[in-house]
């Protein structure tokens, strides 16, 4: 299927760019560990495990934002986006490929972050990991989409958090629920619903973000 081939070619390009530049992923790693250390100092003494669980999600959200802010910078600075839009491939492939690449970076950062979190605070359950995996899909799908818009505005990196955070609230609810509730099933199901709804919306409307 040529659509899959297009997404593959574009995602390869994004991964290659990051491998060359080597700036986003190390920054995300350092950022998330720094945030954990800050958490330690902001949590009052004798805080429960639940508080730390909640803060894990804050850390993931803002680390993701860091990575998402960089996602379309190359395309915008060098106006290469026009070149991609001119190509005969479906424009949604651009979003999907960029989303997949960003997801890869976020997961890579989390693979380091979760053990560090376990070291500093407390272990993470399987439900938490499942929640994080599902949440990552939503975060990267919606975040990449909004990032493409934000980078075309005057306000640029100022705008992305403003656009992203209201949309991220249901993700956080689902995620924290999965981490802390007695029956995480409902919350995981909700995350699946969120991912499905918003990824379809992003996929269908990305065309209009990059064309007139």
């Amino acid at each position, binding site marked *: 299927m*040529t659509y899959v*081939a*297009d997404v593959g*070619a*574009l995602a390869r*390009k994004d991964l*290659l*760019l990051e491998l*060359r*530049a080597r700036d986003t992923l190390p920054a995300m790693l350092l950022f998330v560990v720094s945030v954990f250390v800050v958490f330690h100092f902001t949590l009052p003494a004798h805080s429960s495990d639940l508080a730390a669980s909640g803060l894990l999600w804050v850390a993931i959200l803002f680390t993701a934002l860091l990575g998402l802010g960089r996602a379309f910078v*190359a395309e915008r600075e*060098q*106006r*290469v986006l*026009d*070149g*991609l*839009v*001119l*190509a*005969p*491939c479906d424009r949604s492939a651009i979003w999907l490929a960029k989303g997949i690449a960003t997801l890869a970076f976020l997961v890579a950062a989390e693979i380091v972050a979760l053990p560090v979190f376990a070291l500093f605070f407390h272990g993470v359950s399987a439900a938490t990991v499942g929640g994080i995996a599902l949440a990552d899909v939503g975060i990267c799908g919606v975040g990449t989409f909004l990032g493409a818009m934000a980078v075309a505005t005057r306000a640029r990196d100022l705008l992305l958090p403003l656009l992203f955070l209201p949309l991220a609230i249901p993700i956080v609810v689902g995620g924290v629920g999965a981490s802390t509730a007695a029956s995480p099933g409902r919350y995981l199901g909700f995350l699946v619903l969120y991912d499905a709804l918003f990824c379809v919306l992003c996929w269908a409307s990305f065309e209009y973000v990059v*064309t*007139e």
Partner: protein
Amino acid sequence: MIVARKLGKRFGDKRVLRNVDLDVPRGGFAVVTGANGSGKTTLLRMCAGLARPSEGELEVAVGRAAIGYLAHEPLVYRELTALENLDLYGRLYRVPERRERTGMLLERFGLWQARHDRVASYSRGMTQRLALCRVLLHDPSLLILDEPYAALDEQGAALLDDQLAELRGVRTFLVSTHDPARVERFATTRLALA
């Protein structure tokens, strides 16, 4: 190939194009001239499919796969090599025999030696020559070139002259330029924008 009637373009309050008529037959060579800000780039972008008209009608007989557009910017990734850039575009445009064609173009435009170097290390002339490779890679039937000679060095300009001479009549051209004398011998249609 291209038919435009009473074409107009507005960006919010600013009017950039007004009442433009254009007729480019298949195999024709249209030259668009005009001062800076007269809307040349906007017209070319509309024909390439990157912008929609605000008024009037525009008909382009071919789809995206058969259009090659050379913009002011080279539209290549600075952090990738020439080969990687052309490989990406080759895949996206589903170019048959991608590797051979890429090699042939790089060689023709004198970039073969630098094919493994990052575009960031290229001179302006080299980058523009790479942009030309990008445009010609998928052998488009409609070539839309926005001031192609502007960023080219001597060597590149000569190569472009050869390329235009070779493809004239076989492919359709829409070229905007500040220096119409250079392409005057090819021109079949002329449009001057106010």
